[in-house]
């Protein structure tokens, strides 16, 4: 018997989207580079609404420049805007890298981005002198908004970095990690794991500090303002010389594959290390690439998570039904983890269309023995209708379904992007064994609040 039922979208309309467009993913990726500026080649709304979304989620500034395309550009092309835009960014902000991110309009009008960048570089050479001009990397990132979702845009950005910045040199004994579109807390947890494994990593790219940076006005008096941290351009250049690349996001493997093809850097794709088995897999992959044995310190962390699972899962979580929605990677990872907790992932739904995702959920279905209704290429309206007929005990996903959850009286554990109606989520990990601990606390406390009587404290023991 099949363990999943796949339900495809039957409507033309999108009602309450569960995905967004490619440029957002690319802007997110470029923000993770030290002193880099994302430059969006499109209308002002393409940058301002994304900046708004990112700021709302991370509670941080989001500095994204735009070429401000207007009607004349739509007719005559965006050459002038892009060349001038690159110059203005370069001269004023003296960045390490400019990521030129296309949009639907610049893709459709057929702007020759590579050609325009060439012109801009020539002019910069004259204005800044060759030495200074060449220090600024300019990377074209093609992100047509009408193809796939934000994860594809993220993937395209990482691939562009691998193709345009990485350069062969001496072997460096490091491991490249492509984290996917996760939170600062997640990237910090990944770095923590690398540290325990005594392995140096190159994070492609590291948003942990740029999207969670300290308030120190005295330090920001230096101009121009760049947030602390991020992967340096030198590190990205050096990524061609690493021992291997692990992409924690299966949907963002093109950069890794490109490094493998060009520079023989071996690749491991996914899974996102949410829960025990997926994190185990990350450690096995690290061991395979570096040859480093897994240290006791990590086994202790794993033991702490399993201890907590033993404490809580049988008592409060077992058999509780869960609905999970959001990005395919995180959703699949969460489904597996709730399965490990003895909960039943009855409904898993994503805005993307992906055979990889279906395979992942099939695996979870087999492991848990739960018949999972899996919905791909969907929106939140589909979920809303589904839940009316098939209620679950708990929902896991972004803030976007908060009203649906409230209306249907289903407690919601906020995970994914965007989360704007709760605080602190972006600082804490959901990946790794520590992420598991955080998640199990979140989930169990939500269950306690909603399914146990507060006055009967003994029930809660």
């Amino acid at each position, binding site marked *: 018997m099949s363990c999943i039922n796949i339900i495809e979208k039957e409507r*033309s309309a999108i009602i309450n989207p569960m995905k967004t467009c490619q440029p957002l993913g690319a802007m997110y990726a470029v923000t993770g580079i030290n002193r880099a500026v994302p430059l969006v080649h499109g209308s*002002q709304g393409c940058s301002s609404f994304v900046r708004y979304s990112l700021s709302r989620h991370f509670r941080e500034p*989001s500095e994204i420049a735009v070429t401000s395309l207007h009607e004349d550009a739509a007719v005559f092309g965006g050459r002038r805007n892009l060349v001038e835009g690159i110059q203005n960014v370069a001269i*004023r902000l003296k960045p390490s890298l400019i990521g030129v991110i296309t949009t639907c309009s610049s893709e459709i009008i057929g702007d020759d981005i590579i050609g325009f960048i060439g012109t801009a570089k020539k002019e910069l050479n004259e204005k800044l002198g060759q030495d200074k001009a060449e220090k600024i990397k300019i990377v074209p990132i093609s992100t047509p908004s009408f193809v796939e*979702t934000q994860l594809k845009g993220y993937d395209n950005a990482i691939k562009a970095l691998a193709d345009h910045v990485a350069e062969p040199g001496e072997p460096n004994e490091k491991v490249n990690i492509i984290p996917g579109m996760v939170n600062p807390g997640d990237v910090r947890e990944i770095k923590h794991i690398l540290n325990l494994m005594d392995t140096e990593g190159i994070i492609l790219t590291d948003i942990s500090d740029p999207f969670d940076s300290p308030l120190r006005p005295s330090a920001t008096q230096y101009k121009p303002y760049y947030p602390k941290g991020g992967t340096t351009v030198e590190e990205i250049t050096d990524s061609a010389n690493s021992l291997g690349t692990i992409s924690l996001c299966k949907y963002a493997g093109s950069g890794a594959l490109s490094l493998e093809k060009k520079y023989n850097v071996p690749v491991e794709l996914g899974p996102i290390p949410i829960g025990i088995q997926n994190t185990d897999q990350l450690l096995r992959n690290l061991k395979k690439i570096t040859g480093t044995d897994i240290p006791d310190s990590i086994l202790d962390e794993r033991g702490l998570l399993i201890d907590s699972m033993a404490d809580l899962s049988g008592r409060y979580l077992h058999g509780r039904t869960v609905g999970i929605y959001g990005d395919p990677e995180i959703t699949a990872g969460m489904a597996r983890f709730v399965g490990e907790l003895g909960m039943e992932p009855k409904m898993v739904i994503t805005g993307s269309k992906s055979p990889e995702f279906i395979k992942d959920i099939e695996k979870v279905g087999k492991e848990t023995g739960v018949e999972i209704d899996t919905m791909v290429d969907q929106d939140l309206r589909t979920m809303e209708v589904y839940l009316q007929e098939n209620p679950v005990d708990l929902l896991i996903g972004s803030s976007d379904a908060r009203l649906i959850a409230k209306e249907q009286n289903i407690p919601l554990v906020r995970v994914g992007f965007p989360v704007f109606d709760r605080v602190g989520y972006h600082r804490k990990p959901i990946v790794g064994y520590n992420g598991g601990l955080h998640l199990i606390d979140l989930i169990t406390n939500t269950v306690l609040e909603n399914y146990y009587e507060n006055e009967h404290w003994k029930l809660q023991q």
Partner: protein
Amino acid sequence: MEPVIETFESRKKHMCVKGDGLSIPVCDKASLPGTVTQRTCVFGGARIVLMPITDSIHLVHGPVGCASCTWDIRGSKSSRDDLYKKGCSTDLREKDIVFGGEKKLFETVVELKNLYNPGAIFVYATCVSGVIGDDIKAVCKKAEESTGCRVIPVQSEGFQDHNKTKGHWIGCDALLDNVIGTKEPEETTPYDINIVGEFNVAGDLWGIKPLLEEIGVNIVATMTGDSYVEEIAQSHRVKLNIVQCQKSSNYLAKKMEKKYGIPSLKVNFFGLEQTVASLRDIADFFGDEEMIDRTEKIIERGLAEVQDDIKEYKKRLDGKTVALYVGGNKAWSLVRAFEELGMDVMMSGTKNGIREDYERIKEVVRDGTIIVDDANSTELARLLKKYRPNLLISGAKEKYISLKLGVPFCDFNHDRISAFAGFKGFISFAKEVDASVSSPVFDLTQKTLRED
């Protein structure tokens, strides 16, 4: 003369100091490509005006991003339907770009009508639908005939202009061309009015509406906060339009005056003085003695209710400085409200100002106030660093720039959760301003462990 801040040569004249020769900045120009502009697109401008219509579906014809980054971001409250909170998109894909999206748009409209039976379906054009040349008007017409539901085209291609004000006008035009005047009211009274340019952000309308009802006017439609399409359809028979957000909606009032002969009054319910003046202006307009008496009583009562509650806040806010950097109307309409709290507006600026907006700012601010146009994020940061106001009033994109520099911030945009309009609104306003300015956190941000 020392420049206001260091910036590009071409940007210098976009900033000035009142009384210092140039009192109105250069404005209404395209932003420099390659800056982190705080502006948005024409599509955004149109959406802002129309999105608060509560019984309608707002369908974005374009790739999914235009809808997914903008649904349910308008903090407009509703006392009735919540259809306006849905994020709807035709989700144009590669094949639609090649073969056109008209068929998909038609199907989508029909689906949405069948699912929700809304008061209207507003169809917004985006950059993509503009570039591929979809005839939105024709599809809307066909869909309207086929479904019997109002299907209203909004020609809001994002790249049309550098100024989102054009988007406001396009939103207003959609109402003028397709809604206003399409239904005759069953009854009219001599005191019928519309509230124009009030979007009920955080429930502002509900601070104004009871006052107006008490003075004896009859509100036919609000454009567009907490409204129904059918109300707006009957709005052409009123005796007066009062205009709250003059930035977005003067255009609408002027056109209604031309087309239907409806006079308009500029009103402002932010701040006590302005609230009082607005109520008096409305009563004076009707010239009814009883109404004028009633109004004076309402004013007396309203002021009395407020005074005690704001004393504490005023004490703490006295002499503090504030910088305004907002979308438009608030750049002048809030100035007096801050002065009533004892604060000093040291800077005012807008992202999308046109000349008449800066004329109004210039009228209300004192000499020495910095006036800025379209300051990008680098310039904004430099202004904050150099002049260090005790408070910045702006929106979500500016919020964290300000806080990172240790400058207290108060939201006066879509994200606001407290109503600030009218007498009671002024108490919430004072309270929130005080909570930001007087937070002890901002003493800590200025201290350092090291002597550096």
